């Protein structure tokens, strides 16, 4: 009988099991509590007067009429808030030579993008604040606008921040040497110029913050819709001069973040300042139009790239030039260079070749700031790489799967490093490729494609390999001087009833952090997960940590929880040994009972141990002090990042008359190491894929030549909706990282990392019979028709 049992049949064997999220039930009942929903006593509401110009000098501000409007409590300008807030600069030391001007919540003398907040109005209601905002008169004097990336770098271009000398934020180079010679003598060379538009997170819940400053105790409580409360605790403390221990940041239920809600925003800093000036709680919730002009945008790259191959289709080298535009300054505190840095370091990484040259220029312009959003840099890197691989396959005369099979890093070649310096512990590209081929029935789809073309039905198949950065150590931000933690901490307690409470620094955004932490603790402590309460998102009640970004929640937070569970279990067993007069190594904890390790015979219930410890310590042997609370921290050591890998495929049908693309199906095979909850991992994949497909087909922040966003509403900016999205089939390969006991890597960004690449290849494959090609995202119907030569 024991033969039929798997590890999942043991009591409390939760790791690897699909269990639903206990905390989802209140959301389903409409009982979520988002910042948007929170009301505090004497709370006021803020609205902002925004710049209609992309670049202008502020000549004068007249707030007199606004101040007299009903319900108005304060009208504040840049000067007012600068008195309480120190400026910030979005640079990191490890990006040598990068520069960015100092920023303040509201500008003092000029505006640098259209939509920038200029004046804050605080009133009894949001409606009254908006009424008064309309009565504020700001006189602007327009300045020359810098929009285009080439014009921004041209000699004589207007410089947005004259003190910096030019509009170049950062210039990076990678060169392994001899690239020109390799290209000159290569049997095959393919090249392309790619354009990737700006898009944005469009979280369902817009940005929201309530700052509540109590001048009596110099205490700031910020209810802040963010994924990184500890980072903001540090920032509010330092920039507003409040002792860190007096700053409490609470991130309750968050209505989507995807990297967007971890950056410093001018309005949010202004709200903290306004609350300090007023000594009352002040709330700000961005409306959707404000979100479009003030949330970070993502991507915005022009990449020129070429690939050299030998006669057999072996990739020899890549040569890349990426120019990315980031707005008028670099975002704080993570900078706007990370996106481009990851593009030019990730290009080509699934493949064996070691010759690489890349140039990265990060450029300032008069648009809203660009910075990290889900899958930072990855979608660009793999769209460029994978498209060139497909172009090379066509040139050499190989099937796209075959050329990948010849060039992907062999599964037995690890550990190894890529030409840009990334180190890979163990990846599974070939297993994934084989699995994908089988899962999608690749050969049948190819045969069907040929048949359907005879009926003028044009289907395309696109394949895209990828790697994903996860579990980042301090190499990511800490070494550059950012006060962003790479460690996470957990405090684990057995309560008097024998329940378990875990306060942990990784945060919940609906991805299931609390669920997986509960699973890990349940398994390693030996208790039912129904008895475990996981607490997140409050700097006052949880240990300081990195929280969630760059796919670190499971790998780093999970390892911290595992360590805490181990420690606590040791304490419980030691105490039980004292009570039972038994050797601790003969005992174990299972399903909330202390049992004989060998036989599983139940000896004493955990609740009874807790009762004795808390209420009858007099019955313990002399000298025994129960330790039913433990703390454990974990920071990654070993590899700087735990790379994951995988492959995706997209199957599309192109209507060559209209340029419309129907996405028929999408497949993902991914390897994120040890899977804690397959249900949640699959849903991270699917959601990620769809965000990538949005970027591939629909989403783009369009600007005109004066730097005005021309589609800043949800009626004009297209997001993927249910009817356009395909069913997505997912399979897993598990190569655990050996850097941790848990073995988990991240999975939140893999879907987004390569779905645009797969889609780009699929559309190009569908167009192939017409000799047409496209290298711009999003692939709108108009761009597709243009590529097909049907419109000019």
């Amino acid at each position, binding site marked *: 009988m024991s033969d039929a049992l798997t590890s999942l049949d043991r009591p409390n064997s939760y790791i690897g099991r699909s269990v639903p999220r206990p905390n*989802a039930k209140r959301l389903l009942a409409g009982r979520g509590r988002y910042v948007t929903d929170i009301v505090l006593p004497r709370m006021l509401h803020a609205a902002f007067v925004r710049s209609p110009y992309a670049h202008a000098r502020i000549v004068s501000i007249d707030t007199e009429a606004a101040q007299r409007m009903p319900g108005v409590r304060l009208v504040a300008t840049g000067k007012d808030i600068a008195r309480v807030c120190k400026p910030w600069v979005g640079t990191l030391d490890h990006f040598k030579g990068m520069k960015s001007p100092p920023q303040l919540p509201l500008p003092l003398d000029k505006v640098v993008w259209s939509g920038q907040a200029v004046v804050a109005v605080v009133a009894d209601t949001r409606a009254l604040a908006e009424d008064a905002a309309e009565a504020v008169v700001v006189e602007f004097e327009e300045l020359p606008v810098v929009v285009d990336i080439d014009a921004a770098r041209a000699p004589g271009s207007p410089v947005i921040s004259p003190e910096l000398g030019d509009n170049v934020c950062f210039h990076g180079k990678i060169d392994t040497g001899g690239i020109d010679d390799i290209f000159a003598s290569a049997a095959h060379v393919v090249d392309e110029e790619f354009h990737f538009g700006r898009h944005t997170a469009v979280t369902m819940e817009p940005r929201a913050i309530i700052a509540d400053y109590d001048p009596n105790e110099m205490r700031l409580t910020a209810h802040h819709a963010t994924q990184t409360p500890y980072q903001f605790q540090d920032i509010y403390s330092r920039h507003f001069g409040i002792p860190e221990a007096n700053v409490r940041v609470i991130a309750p239920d968050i209505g989507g973040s995807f990297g967007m809600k971890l950056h410093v925003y001018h309005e949010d800093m202004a709200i903290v300042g306004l609350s300090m000036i007023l000594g009352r709680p002040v709330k700000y919730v961005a409306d959707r139009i404000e979100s479009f002009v003030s949330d970070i945008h993502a991507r915005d790259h022009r990449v020129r790239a070429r690939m050299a191959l030998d006669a057999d289709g072996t990739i020899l080298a890549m040569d890349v030039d990426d120019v990315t535009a980031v707005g008028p300054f670099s975002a704080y505190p993570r900078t706007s260079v990370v996106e481009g840095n990851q593009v030019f370091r990730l290009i080509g990484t699934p493949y064996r070749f070691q010759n690489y040259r890349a140039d990265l220029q990060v450029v300032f312009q008069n648009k809203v700031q660009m910075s990290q959003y889900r899958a930072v840099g990855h979608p660009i890197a793999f769209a460029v790489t994978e498209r060139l691989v497909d172009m090379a396959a066509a040139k050499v005369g190989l099937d796209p799967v075959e050329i990948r099979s010849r060039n992907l890093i062999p599964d037995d070649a690890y550990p190894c490093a890529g030409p840009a310096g990334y180190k890979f512990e163990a990846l599974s590209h070939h297993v994934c490729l084989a699995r994908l081929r089988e899962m999608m029935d690749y050969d049948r789809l190819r045969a069907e494609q040929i048949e359907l073309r005879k009926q003028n039905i044009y289907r395309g198949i696109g394949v895209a390999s990828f790697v994903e950065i996860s579990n980042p150590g301090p190499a990511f931000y800490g070494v550059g001087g950012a006060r962003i933690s790479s460690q996470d901490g957990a405090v684990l307690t057995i309560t008097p009833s024998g329940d378990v409470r875990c306060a942990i620094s990784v945060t919940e955004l609906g991805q299931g952090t609390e669920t997986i932490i509960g699973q890990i603790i349940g398994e390693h402590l030996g208790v039912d997960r129904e008895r475990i309460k996981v607490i997140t998102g409050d700097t006052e009640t949880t240990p300081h940590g990195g929280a969630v970004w760059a796919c670190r929640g499971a790998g780093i937070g999970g390892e911290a929880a595992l360590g805490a569970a181990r420690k606590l279990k040791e304490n419980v067993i030691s105490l039980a040994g004292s009570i039972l007069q038994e050797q601790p190594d003969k005992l174990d904890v299972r399903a909330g009972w202390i049992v004989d390790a060998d036989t599983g015979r139940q000896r004493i219930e955990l609740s009874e141990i807790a009762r004795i410890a808390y209420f009858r310590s007099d019955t313990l042997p002399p000298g025994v002090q129960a330790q039913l609370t433990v703390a454990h921290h974990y920071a990654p050591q070993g590899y700087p990042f735990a790379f994951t890998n995988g492959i995706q495929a997209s199957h599309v049908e192109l209507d060559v008359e209209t340029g419309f693309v129907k996405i028929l199906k999408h497949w993902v095979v991914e390897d994120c190491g040890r899977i804690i909850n397959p249900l949640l991992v699959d849903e991270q994949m699917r959601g990620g894929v769809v965000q990538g497909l949005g970027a591939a087909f629909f989403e783009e922040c369009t600007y005109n030549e004066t730097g005005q966003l021309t589609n800043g509403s949800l009626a004009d900016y297209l997001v993927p*909706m249910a009817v356009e999205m395909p069913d997505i089939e997912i399979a897993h390969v598990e190569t655990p990282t050996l850097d941790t006991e848990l073995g988990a890597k991240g999975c939140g960004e893999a879907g987004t990392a390569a779905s645009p690449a797969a889609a780009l290849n699929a559309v190009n494959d569908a167009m192939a019979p017409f000799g047409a090609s496209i290298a711009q995202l999003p692939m709108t119907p108009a761009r597709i028709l243009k590529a097909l030569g049907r419109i000019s």
Partner: protein
Amino acid sequence: MSTPVNISLTVNGEMVSRNVTPRETLADFLRISLELTGTHMGCEMGVCGACLVLLDGQVVHSCLMFAVQAGGSVVETIEGLTERAVIADIQDAFHQRNALQCGFCTPGMLMTAYALLSRPGIPSRDDIRDALSGNYCRCTGYESIVDAIETVARRRVLAGRQLEEAGA
């Protein structure tokens, strides 16, 4: 123009009477005056579906109508449907299938699901996707939501048949 107007209406089975300003949307009225914060606002222009409520039995965007227009009506929000337990099976299917992440779109999704599943028969996956196309979700990629609704549709038809058979 800004003089408050008194309205009376039924919300989640309770008669309520309040003064509202003419410019106040039904969504703001529900969220702020009645503290029914399960109704969410994502776009304030009738695109995203987070604010859907039932008005006299019809699914409507509460951000697109004024509170004064709802005077005399019967309004039901996610809180009301939950308390009446008429969507308990849909909520359970969403929970089991993890058809939500951040949960911000979820009340609106459940409104659409409630309306769709009130029609006879089992909708196809395409029908479900079509019905959901006024509900924006940034987290899930939609498939799990389609799965959950499909599951409930099948279960309800099956339960109906079993009831018929038992009755016959």
